[in-house]
């Protein structure tokens, strides 16, 4: 494998993450407070500023999914009365909780001292923490983030969110931390965030080259890791993205395709844009169905759920609360449907994709409701072939490998046939 350089950034990421889990495991002894919160619209800078440690239940759920545990967890949650129909992230989390709350490193996760419900782009988050509140009996702080119903962030929306940050969220976090927010530090953190964001965008946009040096979906979910989790606004993140950027620059120079679990992809046969989250329980198998056919994902919307930076938004140190508000309201699932369609259309054109594919996950209404309209509209507007597959995030019952393979094969053959004609 040509990925000796690649390993550096990956190792770095692994170290960062395991250090984080180690901190969590020691949190209680070290007297540090733990805040559970969600990925989209996370307020990592604020938490770090106050020395609070974040736990992201979604990340736990997806990690459990990758480690093949969610089947059991979901079962446990369903036994406890949860419906088969609802979001499996929630059920995986509840199942994990009821099985001792063992984190991905094998150590138990600390209980929350506070649940920070910043609910961006999905109503299920609200229910999720209502449920956790009943398990942990700790305070919940709600940050209501309005939706971009009309496709833009208005001043009243911004004032509303910034006001809640000022009047509700920050006081609660300060009380918990026992100290005040250090605004100078916050400004520095936000500047670091912006730097990492620049590099992330550069990396994701490298897929415009042919062949693309990255896979913006299967590889992309690793690249966004550090920003999504606990590291935005830290020097760790800045360094990671610099490393990553250097590596990708090398690949570009060498004209190399993306790294796959079986080495560098030799021939880029299809360039695809993907909408929707991946499946975690059969992540490798799913990935293989792409690279096995020579398909490379050149852009994806899922890598924007924790923040959408390629339209120019960067954290702005000069107006901390407003910029955090804008960040929360700007995450991908907070865009209205016409805007999502426009964004995907732009990806298909900018990244010269042969087609686009929607992986519709059963769990997530936030993503899924309306995806079939997205499919129609994109086909109409771009003239490129659209594919549609259905699976789930972490419920192994909803990943039917044979079926998805059948559809993907048909889809790629369809793209091929269409290309041969034009």
């Amino acid at each position, binding site marked *: 494998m040509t990925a000796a350089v690649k390993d550096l950034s990956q190792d770095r990421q692994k170290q960062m993450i395991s250090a984080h889990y180690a901190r969590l495991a020691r949190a209680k002894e070290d007297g540090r407070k733990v805040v559970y919160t969600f990925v989209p619209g996370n307020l990592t800078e604020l938490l770090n500023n106050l020395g609070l440690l974040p736990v992201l239940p979604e990340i736990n759920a997806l990690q459990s999914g990758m480690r093949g545990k969610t089947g059991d967890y979901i079962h446990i949650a369903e036994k406890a009365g949860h419906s088969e129909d609802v979001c499996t992230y929630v059920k995986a989390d509840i199942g994990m909780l009821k099985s001792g709350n063992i984190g991905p490193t094998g150590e138990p996760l600390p209980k929350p001292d506070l649940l920070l419900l910043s609910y961006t782009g999905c109503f299920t988050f609200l229910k999720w923490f209502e449920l956790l509140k009943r398990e942990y009996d700790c305070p919940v702080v709600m940050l209501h983030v309005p939706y971009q119903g009309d496709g833009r962030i208005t001043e009243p929306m911004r004032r509303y969110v910034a006001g809640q940050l000022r009047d509700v969220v920050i006081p609660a976090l300060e009380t918990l931390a026992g100290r005040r927010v250090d605004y100078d530090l916050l400004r520095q953190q936000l500047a670091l965030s912006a730097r990492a964001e620049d590099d992330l965008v550069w990396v994701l946009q490298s897929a415009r080259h042919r062949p693309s040096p990255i896979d913006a979906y299967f590889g992309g979910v690793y690249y966004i890791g550090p920003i999504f989790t606990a590291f935005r606004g830290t020097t760790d993140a800045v360094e990671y993205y610099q490393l990553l950027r250097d590596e990708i620059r090398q690949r570009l120079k060498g004209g190399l395709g993306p790294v796959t679990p079986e080495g560098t992809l030799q021939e880029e046969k299809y360039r695809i844009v993907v909408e929707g989250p991946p499946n975690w329980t059969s992540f490798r198998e799913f990935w293989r169905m792409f690279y096995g056919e020579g398909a490379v994902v050149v852009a994806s919307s899922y890598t924007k759920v924790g923040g959408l930076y390629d339209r120019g938004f960067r954290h702005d140190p000069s107006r901390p609360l407003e910029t955090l508000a804008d960040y929360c309201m700007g995450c991908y699932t907070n865009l209205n449907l016409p805007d999502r369609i426009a964004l995907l259309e732009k990806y298909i054109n900018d990244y010269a994709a042969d087609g686009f594919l929607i992986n519709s996950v059963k769990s997530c209404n936030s993503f899924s409701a309306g995806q*079939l309209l997205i*499919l*129609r509209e994109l*086909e109409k507007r771009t003239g490129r*072939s*659209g594919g*549609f597959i*259905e699976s789930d995030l972490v419920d192994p019952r909803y990943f*039917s490998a044979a*079926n998805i393979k*059948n*559809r993907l*094969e*048909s889809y790629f*053959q*369809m793209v091929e*046939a*269409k290309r041969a*004609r034009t």
Partner: protein
Amino acid sequence: MDCFVGIDLGSTTTKAVIVDTRGRIVGRGITNSRSNYDVAAQVARNEAFTNARFDMLGRALREEGGLGDAGPAFEAALAAAYRHECFLGQLQRLENHCRRDLESDRYTHDRRAMGHALEVILAGIRHDAAAVYGGGTAARSDFFRDLAGASYTEHAAHVAREGGPAFDRLVGLFDRNIIPVENEPETRGFAQLLRSALDRVPLSLAQRRDAVAGLLARVAEADLREVSAVGTGYGRVRLPFPKENIRSEILCHGLGAHLMFPRTRTVLDIGGQDTKAIQVDEHGVVTSFQMNDRCAAGCGRYLGYIADEMNIGLHELGPLALGARRRIKINSTCTVFAGAEFRDRLAAGQAREDIVAGLHRAIILRAMSLLARSGGIRNEFTFTGGVGRNQAAVKALHEVAQDNYGSLTINIAPDSIYTGAIGAATFALQGSARN
């Protein structure tokens, strides 16, 4: 002659089609998939080759047989006799299996009675078959299992009523032994079967037997060379073909429909266990598609259950439904519950025809949702798959399509069950042209 073969290994039936170098369909074969996939593919392929030879035979007879007006009748009689011959061969194998089975411990107590009953039943089946192939009555189905099964059940019921062994026991004997029969392909070759068939053709038609004998021998020996084959369908991965000779059934159906009806833009295929909605462009290239998964509700098998429940043949279901007078809305389309739904509604006093028509409409409505998801119905609309043979389903399709998408040309070809195989055969032809 160079032949290109397409094999569509469906969940219910396996279809094979042969095209020649010009893409003309020269042979078709179909069989039950309810057996070993390899065997099914082999049987369908053999049948297609047989069919191709008959195709050649027909042309030769017309051109040089010198039979004049008696030609077509002779050809038909010969074909029927050929099928009859195959049927008898299978029946013989069924008899062998049953007899072997009767030696087992299961029948310690009633071996004699069972043996006797079997004899009576088999005689009955032979008698029925003679009527069917002699042109007396219409065949209930193309398949040995169905044909012999229906006849067997009927005679078994009679035997049981006359004081023979219990009906369930007799039917059990058949059910158990039909399986191996389906897994054994015919061993006799075309020439041999044709010779036997010729012996069966009535004398008046066969008077010129000697005159055509040479011609028959020539056709039987003609060299049909299989240049390449492409497989598709539900069970395609089981086919012993290299990867590049396996095509997705979606593409094959799209292409097949396009070949039959070049103006096709939307294809609906309802098979035994799956339903596909496909959109194609003006070249027959698939642009979008949807198919059901995990749940077989509302597929062809659904009708099978209903027919079983009513104890009638599949092909009788459509005509029955056409007699409906009222529209009944049926919501549950779980295939397995179809029978129960039918019973419930009968008990509630609804008419048989109306219920059956409602069930057909339910299938079509379910297909509509797939169609809608694949992008709706565009003109022209081609309906393929086994359910296309069912007139009531076709009628419901016309109605619903008309109500929701306006006036459309709806194509249903007699060959529609072969759509996927036609596409596959054409892919085989195109593939070898490219190489």
